[in-house]
Every structure is written in C-alpha cells, then in structure tokens.
C-alpha cells in the first residue's frame, strides 16, 4: 500500500521551508515516495501525518537488531521472494546452542569453539552470529549464571532460550545491555515475556503452534507494546518449515502485518548431514535466524558458504582491483602468476600460492570481475589483454626472470601470449589447488 508522492504531499505542512534539505514540500514528498529520504528529515510534520505516513512507508518486514557493539546482527527488511528479483538484503543469522547446565569448563570451551567458527571466504571473514543459551536446567539462577559466563567469553549476540519468565528476567539482569533476543513468548507466557521485552527494550521471539496461532499471538504481544519481534511458526520438520517460511515471506510482502518480522528456525536432527540440510533449506528460503546444535566446522562451513552465495547481490560480481599482488616475502626470483580480477578466482589463487610457501606475485587482469573461463569465453581474458597487463603493470621491473604462469584452463592462450609478450609462458594446473605441487615440480 505504498503512497504516491502526491498522497504524501497532502499530509505535509506545505510551507516549503526547506529544512528537510529539499526545495519544496512536494520535492520532499517525491523523494519519500521513492524511498530516497526519511520522514524524520521534516521537523514540522504533524503527529497525525506521521502515523499515516509511518505505517505506509514501513518496510514489509521489520528490521530487527540483536546484540550490541561491533557484532550486531541485523535481520529482516527483505523485499522480494526471489533473489533474482532484486537481492536478499540481510544474511540470516546462524546461532549455536549452549546448554546452561554444562559444567563451567565445558561451557567455556564450547563458547570458545563457537568463537572459532569463522571462515575466510573471498577475502572476508564470515562467522556464526549468535549463541543460543538453552535453559535446560529449568533453574533461573543456573540460566543467569550461564548467560553471564557466555557474555564474558564472546562478543556474539545472545539468545535467551527459556520459556520461563523468571529465568529470562534473571538473565536479562546480566545481559540486557547486550540486547539479547528473548526466545520465546508462547500462549502460556506471553504477557510476562512481552512485559520483560518492553521493560528492557530487547527483541522478542514469538512461537505459535501454527501460522494462525502465531498471528494471534503476535497481535497480542504487539498490543502489549513489544516492537521488535522474531517469528517461530513452531514447525520442526523440514518439509513444513519450507512451507511455513514461504507463507511468512509471501504474506509479509502482501503486507499482512502480523507476519512482517524476520523468522527463526531450528535444525535439530541428530544426524549431522540431515541437520545441515534442515538448516540449508530455510537458509536459502527466507529464515532470519537458524539455530543449530553443533560446533563442527565441517558442518558450518557449507552453511556459511551457502549463505554468502544466496545473499550475494546478483547485480554485482565481487571484484578485486586489477594490479600486482605480493604473497609473502617476494624477491626478483619469485614466480609470477596471472589470473582474473574476480574476487573468488583471485582469492582461490592467492590462498593456494600462500599454501605453497613460495612467495609469489599475482597479476590480476581486469575482466570486469569474471572468472577465468567466463572471461575467456567472453573475450575478456585474451593474450592481448594479458600481454598488456604484463607490460604495463610494472611487473617486469620487479622480477629478474621473464616467466609467467597461466591457469591450466586457458592453456590455448600460451602460444599467442608468448609471441605477444615475449615472456616464457608456463601452463599451470587447471585448479589453483595444484599450484603447490606444480611449483615443486617446475619452479626450482
């Protein structure tokens, strides 16, 4: 139900005072309709207009923030069903469970293991985001102590996993300032939970038995003044999870208000592969937070990678600057590798050159951020372009030799490149993973 510029204009003061930074109220209204400015920029707008405009300009799915400091997780604000329609905005948070009744040393080492679930993907660190502290003991004091211990060991956001309002109240006494997510308000406890969330200004998860039940409960907690919500439809079987997540997203985009919040799902299967799949499906389809009970990097790495892929902006390949990169303590004798400036490609090669422990130069050719074969097929990774890069980058001044290593996938370029550049061309392995072995054999 977005309003048009003219409809918004009717609600503005029409004084053209310019304090919003726009020349006229009409211009401001147009910018607002296009989503290019925000209502707060106009200091004169009436309360009544604010309400009318606020509801209409609110995003279909609220933005919810969990945590404090550097590691705030922001989820929600999604606008599409398919990533190709625009993009998915806020990567789903991955939460790892910790039981509150673990002995203190085990709890500490579990949190340390969670902190280590960080992976370098295309030159950026990608980590799990949240610790889900589970009130398995049922005791408020045990829960509060565990939550405190977790807080001291990590700067990740915390989820307070307890349906007991006393336990949540005790834990909030320790970590309210960290803005944890309270999990969860249910039909049995929502009054107390909503009051706690409101009192401490923290986000609240709401769990229904099914979609209808959830919608009812959301209306009740909203009426009590809880604002930042996270939705749990109660589904735990992956086939039902997919359907429910699809419904939440579809209905939120159709502005069904009770579902206008990000969601939380649980991957609970004891088998690791099934568990990963229970997480992977909602990761691709619409979940805001996925909770898992594992600290095995072999399980988290595929999920983090899937998340990175699904949430990549389909309009922009991630590129690195086309230039000479030095890996390790290079000398004039170091090998020279050429590749493209697609981030994924560059970081594959850089990682493998590093793994070889032979310092080396990597020259990235500007291929508009496309991979080796894509660029080759599109005429962006040609002997001419590589020769020009060799001659113009200044690499010739940095090394004493004239040997360049090219990707095995474009071996066909070698003759022409040799002729054009005057450099001796060595055809490397097809996969950069073969670089360490290749250097042992061909680079004395």
């Amino acid at each position: 139900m977005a309003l048009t510029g003219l409809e918004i204009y009717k609600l503005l003061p029409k004084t053209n005072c310019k304090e919003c930074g726009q020349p006229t109220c009409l211009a401001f209204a147009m910018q607002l309709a296009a989503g290019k400015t925000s209502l707060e920029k106009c200091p004169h707008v009436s309360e009544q207009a604010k309400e009318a405009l606020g509801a209409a300009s609110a995003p279909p799915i609220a933005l919810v923030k969990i945590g404090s400091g550097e590691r705030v997780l922001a989820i929600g604000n999604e606008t599409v069903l398919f990533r190709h329609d625009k993009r998915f905005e806020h990567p789903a948070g991955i939460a790892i469970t910790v039981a509150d009744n673990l002995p203190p040393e085990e709890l500490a080492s579990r949190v340390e293991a969670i902190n280590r679930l960080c992976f370098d993907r295309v030159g950026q660190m990608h980590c799990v985001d949240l610790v889900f502290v589970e009130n398995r003991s049922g005791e408020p004091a045990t829960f509060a102590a565990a939550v405190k211990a977790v807080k001291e060991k990590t700067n990740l956001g915390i989820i307070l996993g307890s349906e007991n309002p006393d336990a949540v109240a005790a834990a909030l006494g320790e970590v309210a300032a960290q803005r944890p997510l309270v999990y969860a308000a249910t039909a049995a406890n929502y009054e107390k939970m909503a009051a706690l969330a409101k009192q401490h200004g923290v986000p609240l998860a709401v769990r229904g038995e099914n979609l209808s039940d959830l919608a009812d409960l959301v209306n009740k907690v909203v009426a009590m003044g809880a604002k930042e919500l996270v939705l749990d439809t109660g589904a735990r079987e992956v086939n039902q999870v997919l359907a429910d997540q699809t419904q939440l997203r579809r209905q939120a985009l159709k502005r069904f208000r009770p579902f206008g919040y990000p969601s939380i799902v649980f991957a609970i299967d004891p088998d690791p592969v099934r568990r990963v799949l229970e997480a992977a499906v909602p990761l691709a389809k619409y979940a805001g937070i996925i909770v898992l009970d594992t600290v095995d990097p072999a399980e988290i790495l595929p999920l983090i990678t899937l998340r990175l892929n699904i949430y990549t902006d389909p309009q922009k390949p991630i590129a690195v600057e086309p230039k000479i990169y030095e890996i390790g303590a290079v000398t004039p004798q170091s090998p020279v590798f050429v590749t493209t400036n697609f981030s994924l490609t560059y970081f594959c090669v850089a990682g493998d050159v590093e793994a070889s422990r032979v310092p080396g130069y990597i020259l990235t050719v500007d291929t508009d951020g496309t991979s080796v074969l894509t660029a080759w097929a599109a005429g962006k990774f040609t002997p001419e372009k590589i020769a020009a890069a060799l001659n113009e980058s200044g690499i010739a001044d940095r090394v004493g030799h004239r040997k360049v290593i090219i990707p095995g996938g474009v071996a066909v370029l070698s003759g022409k490149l040799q002729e054009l550049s005057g450099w001796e061309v060595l055809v490397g392995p097809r996969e950069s993973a073969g670089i360490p072995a290749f250097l042992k054999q061909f680079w004395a």
Partner: protein
Amino acid sequence: MTVAIAKERWASRCLETVLGTGPRQVKVGGDATLPFLHFEGEIPNPPVVALEVFDAPPQEWPEFLTGAYEGVLSDPVAWAKRCQDYGADLVALRLTRTHPDGENASPEEAARVAAAVAEAVEVPLIVLGCGVEEKDAAVLPEVASALSGRNCLLGCATQENYKSIVAGCIANGHAVIASSPLDINLAKQLNILITEMNLEPNRIVIDPSIGALGYGIEYAYSIIERVRTGALMGDKMLSMPVILLVGQEVWKTKEAKTPDTAEWGEHKKRAILWEVTTAVSLIHAGGHIAVVRHPESLQYIKEHIAKMMQPQKY
C-alpha cells in the same frame, strides 16, 4: 484468527519426461508448483538422483571416494551394477576415454562400453560425452544407435553440436541433455533449435550449467529458479526438467579436496556435505535430476527428497 494460505495461481506446469524402460523406468518433472510446495499444486514425481560411472579409473579422487568403488574402478559394467546396488535411480556413464587429448577412443569403442553398461543395469542410463563438442558430436550418435530403444538420456548437446546428437536421439528413441552456459535466453534458444528438428519437447532435459557451492552456485540457483517460474507461467521452451551435474563441480573444489584440518574439520564429512548441500540447494531451486558421485551423498539426498515429498499440514 485463521490465516488464509497464500497460493499462487500458476498458468501451467513443467513437462514430464520418462527415461528408461521396464519396471525401473523413471519419470521426472510434471510439477505444477515450485519445489515441494504441495499446498499449492501437484508434484507428481520426486526429483531423482544418479550416480556417475567412468569408463576409465578416475584421477585425483580422494581415497574415501574411490574406496566406495573398490574393485570396480576399471570395469564400468561392474561399477554401474554397484551404483544400482547403492540405490541410484539412474546411472550416468561418462565417456572420458574419448577425449582427444587423452586416449581419443573411437565412437565405436565408446558405443560398445555404453551398450555393455546398459545391458547390465535395469535403471535408466545417462551417457555423457567427454565435453569436447566436436568429439561428442561424433561419439553420441554412435552411442545412440548402440542403445537403440532403451530410452536413455544423452548429452551434452550444445549450440555448436546439437544437430547430430539430436538426430541420433530421434532415430533411436532417446532423450537429450541441452546444455547452455548459465544464460536463460541461450537455454531457451537451444530448446527452440532442438524442437525445430522435431524432437518432442518432453524429450529434452535442460542442463543450465552449474557451479559448486562457493563456486558460482548462486548463478545456477537463480537461473534454475527462473526456468521453473518461466515453466509455471507457461513458457513452453523453459518447461523441460532440469539436470544438475553436481559431482563434476564438487569434487574439484578445495573444500572437497583438502585433507582434515582443524579450521575446516574432517575431510570426508566436509566433502560429502559439499556434494549434498550443492545438490539439495539446487533441487530446491527447481532441479529434477542430480548426478552425484559418493554413495553416501546419494543416500542423504534421496532421504531428503523423500522427506520433502511428504505433504504439508495446512
């Protein structure tokens, strides 16, 4: 309050393709909705999973992958039977020996191997050439005639070499894999060219080209989603089932190759998760046939599909 379930009214559905003959025949496609949304439309056939067989012992496979095929790596017939025993819905024979840079085996020789494998298994057979377009154009028609009447799936046909391959399929009653490089318009165009040769549209399976998890899967994911929504909206030239050549992408990745490390965890577990996660994500985008290599991957993917085929409670 009762929440009304939001359902799309799709104008059309995917085509259904039948592969193989006899009791182990496989049907794919026919979906009237997006993957596994049973509340919205009929999903007559579950996605299926194939295991890959090579005509020569593969190089550079980790030991836990070759170990699954111990004793049969040099014998494609025995290997194919093992795949059937592992529960593969189909077997995908890859004719690597025909590659011109390698052994350059003749079309006749390739056809003999394919016929022997077909004879040995009851499940439908997929036959994949070496990937060199000219050579496949010579090999696959020969294979097609050696497998005449068995209703196999042959590929990959590209814009460069589809003519002879499609002619071989028409003459001998096979279906064809139409392969295009991650471009929905190119996929469509190739399907048009192939149907203009008078192959029925439901005898085509789309290979959109895929990347492994972490290596371009997002492009494949979105192309496949667009193919599926195109089919449901009534685009006949995007309605064919989609095949996912997962194994060939996954087993060359670093994640599937790197031995046990503290940062990345156990090698075998990680590699199988890589194959399973790649296949399952793309099945959820709209893939119908996943071709994988490890028998444990096969089991997990099939089990996941079985779970997803259970209807939802609304």
